[in-house]
């Protein structure tokens, strides 16, 4: 992937966010914008955003080992994934919605477009959600997802990961990303992860094993904080800019 074509169109900080065009990830080739993004002043539209958009989040939604509603428990290594949602000034973001989805322990998604011969688990939907608490903390109980094959290139395998969708307080803070697991040899081979431009930013997508979070006779603990954009500077500071 070191010799892949990398586009110049990037939204946000170039040390952090991937380019839209990263040819090693083939689906970017016909979907990446090619014209420069337009810089515009921040207005109320960007400095506001939806609050908790789903009113019916229940505690059961955060337990992916049991939320299939079958009465049975998902097969796999039980894990706790927890951390905080913060802005880039370190402020906790309370009461914001996180939605997650993932493959089962065998690396299979419950989805019509995932047809590789990994077994499905009738007790695992692979979807969950929760709201952060007053300190910005979220917590999921799930099973460790498996790696899975995809057709991007010969013998392509995605490293184990969990998809996260986060709102945060503003339009600016909206983020969809993926959390990875430590010490996975597939990281270096994965064009989606490698599209992140710096080692430092890639490392921040990897959860940390935390033995203090591990519960005896029950589940392994992983810690992963999510840092989303806050408003840079004073609202409307650039509003005096003319045509």
């Amino acid at each position, binding site marked *: 992937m070191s010799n892949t074509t990398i586009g110049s169109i990037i*939204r*946000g*900080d170039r*040390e*952090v*966010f*991937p*380019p*839209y065009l*990263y040819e090693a*990830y083939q*689906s*970017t*080739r*016909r*979907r*990446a*914008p*090619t*014209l420069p*993004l*337009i*810089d*515009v*002043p921040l*207005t*109320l*539209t*960007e400095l506001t955003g939806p*609050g908790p*958009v789903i009113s*019916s989040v229940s505690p059961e939604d955060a337990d992916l080992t049991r939320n299939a509603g079958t009465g049975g428990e998902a097969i796999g290594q039980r894990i706790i994934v927890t951390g905080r949602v913060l802005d880039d000034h370190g402020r906790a973001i309370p009461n914001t919605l996180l*939605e997650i*989805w993932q*493959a089962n322990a065998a690396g299979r*998604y*419950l*989805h019509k*477009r*995932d047809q590789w011969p990994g077994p499905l688990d009738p007790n695992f939907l*692979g*979807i*969950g*959600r929760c709201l952060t608490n007053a300190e910005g903390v979220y917590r999921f109980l799930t099973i460790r997802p498996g790696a899975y094959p995809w057709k991007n290139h010969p013998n392509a395998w995605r490293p184990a990961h969990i*998809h996260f*969708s986060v709102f945060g307080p503003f*339009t600016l803070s*909206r983020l969809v*990303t993926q959390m990875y697991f430590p010490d996975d040899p597939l990281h270096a081979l994965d064009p*989606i992860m490698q*599209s*992140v431009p710096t080692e430092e930013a*890639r490392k*921040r*997508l990897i959860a940390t094993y935390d033995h203090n979070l591990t519960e005896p006779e029950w589940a392994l603990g992983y810690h992963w904080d999510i*840092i989303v*954009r806050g408003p*840079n500077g004073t609202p409307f500071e650039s*509003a*005096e800019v003319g045509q």
Partner: protein
Amino acid sequence: MSANGLTSSQTVGPFFFPCLLREDACRSVLVLPETVGERIRIEGRVFDGDGIPVPDAMVEIWQANAHGRYNHPLDQGPAALDPSFMGFGRCGTDDDGYYWFETIKPGAVPFGDGRLQAPHICVSVFARGLLNHVVTRLYFADEPANADDPVLHYVPVDRQATLLAQRESGSESIVYRFDIVLQGEGETVFFNL
């Protein structure tokens, strides 16, 4: 350097529908019977660089209410809140790339220097192949206030049309058409937000 702590973006991938578009997470209808404002339908398609519809995208919108007030603590303007209007929409594209929303036309919101912005809706698109979502604005093509909109003036004149939703004729209800072209001819203007 504060940005160095940020969590990077990754594609939503192909398998998000059962999670992000489960029944109670879809928000194609933003209005309740008591919501104040002119009912409009927004519909359009998402296209890739080959002009092929994108069947696995998700479109989210965020807008002010009919009075021009956002349902958010940072908007402390004098315009009235509408408790029956949250302003958030989310819709997946279908096999032909279509998405739609039933909402109200937003009022004009302040720019911050005494001027008003023309009525507009913030639009974000997520899809497999988009390593970071794209963010744009929908304006209403038949809105005279567009001529003085302070944000639209940052967009090159020859690309402004990509942000203008066109009113469809021949329908009893008010329908605005807003196609989103991710790449190539007629590429939609996206913002560096």
